[in-house]
């Protein structure tokens, strides 16, 4: 048990910052991003014995974090909550402002109604987290060709919506 807690502490020390950045870009809210980081490491603790992504824990944690963020978006949509803590001066993303973050979040909410979880994971991994197709394939556990096919189908289906997602 102590070994697992120590592992989580090490992972938190090393990766929590970038996971916060990722969560903030998906959620647009500092408090929710912190909650997403918490959820990520708690879920990572539970699944630590299943870790099999090779040397680096980062892609694995990214995927867990994606699921945590999507869950928060889904829950908040059900509750009708709107993030308010997206002021640009508190640290934004790529210099873009609140409108951009809210727009991305709304786009993700809309997409979640149409897409299955795996496709959402691929979309987030490629268009928001910036993983290349090979990294996405490894993260999701399908072939690179399947990832390319899904992304192509997504572009054809969603059209301009994808531009809102791309960072």
């Amino acid at each position, binding site marked *: *048990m102590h070994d*697992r*807690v120590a592992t*989580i*502490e090490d992972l*938190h*020390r*090393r*990766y*929590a*910052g*970038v996971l*916060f*950045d*990722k969560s*903030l870009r998906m959620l647009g809210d*500092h408090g929710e991003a*912190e909650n997403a*980081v*918490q959820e990520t*490491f*708690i879920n990572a*603790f*539970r699944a630590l*014995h299943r870790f099999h992504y090779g040397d*680096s824990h*980062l892609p694995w944690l*990214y995927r867990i974090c994606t699921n945590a963020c999507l869950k928060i978006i889904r829950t908040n949509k059900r509750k009708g909550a709107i993030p308010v803590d997206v002021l640009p001066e*508190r*640290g*934004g*993303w*790529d*210099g873009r402002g609140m409108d951009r973050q809210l727009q991305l979040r709304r786009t993700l909410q809309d997409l979640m109604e149409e897409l299955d979880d795996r496709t959402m994971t691929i979309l987030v991994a490629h268009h928001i*987290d*910036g*993983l*290349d197709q090979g*990294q996405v394939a490894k993260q999701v556990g399908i072939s690179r060709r399947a990832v390319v096919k899904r992304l192509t189908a997504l572009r054809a289906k969603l059209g301009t919506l994808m531009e809102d997602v791309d*960072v």
Partner: protein
Amino acid sequence: MSDCPPRFSLVQLTTGDLSEDQATELESHVEGCPPCAAKLAALQQNVAIFEHKREANLAQIKLRLHDEGVAQAPRRWGWRWIPTLTAPLAAAAAILLLVWAPTEQHPQSGAVRFKGALSAKVIARRAGQQFVVKNGAKLTALHPHHLIGRLCDGVFRGRGAPSDTLLPRDRPCGDASAALPRNPRQARPARKRRLGQLRGHRTHRHRLLGEGLSTRQTPPKDRSFAQN
């Protein structure tokens, strides 16, 4: 812009997950690419923001792990089957108790009364090798002392045997007596009969009568036990 590395590479550069060569190459690219430099700056800004909240965040994670009981010792696969097998083991113990429970004993002869069908396995030895006598085989073809495990003075009754059929208790049993437990409560045929009943098996109708080993003869019914 199209030659820019994926954003995830900037993350890996920040966390130190790139090799030295990859990191050097990426850093040289970022120096000459304003969009990538802006992305990296925004990333590092968010990481710096979280740096102030890191300890509080980690403390909350530990607290939640403790509260939820997740931080308990992990259950290993080797021990997971114990609760699963608890019920079958309890059932097996109950069956064992049922089989070994005292049966009703005849006051004069000391015989024990069994009800219902019997199931017995007759084992014979020939030329130094043991084998099971199949159902319906002619037992008269075997010499008596070749048989192991038979009840020489007893009567194995098949399906439909009267409820007062008696099995002897503590009586000499010839060559095969050593193979049988002296206490008829421990007699294997009785246990097999009861287990057979529970499982609904068909009984083997090996009938042994005295030393004659005839499968045809039917022993005289002793009704005295029923009358008692």
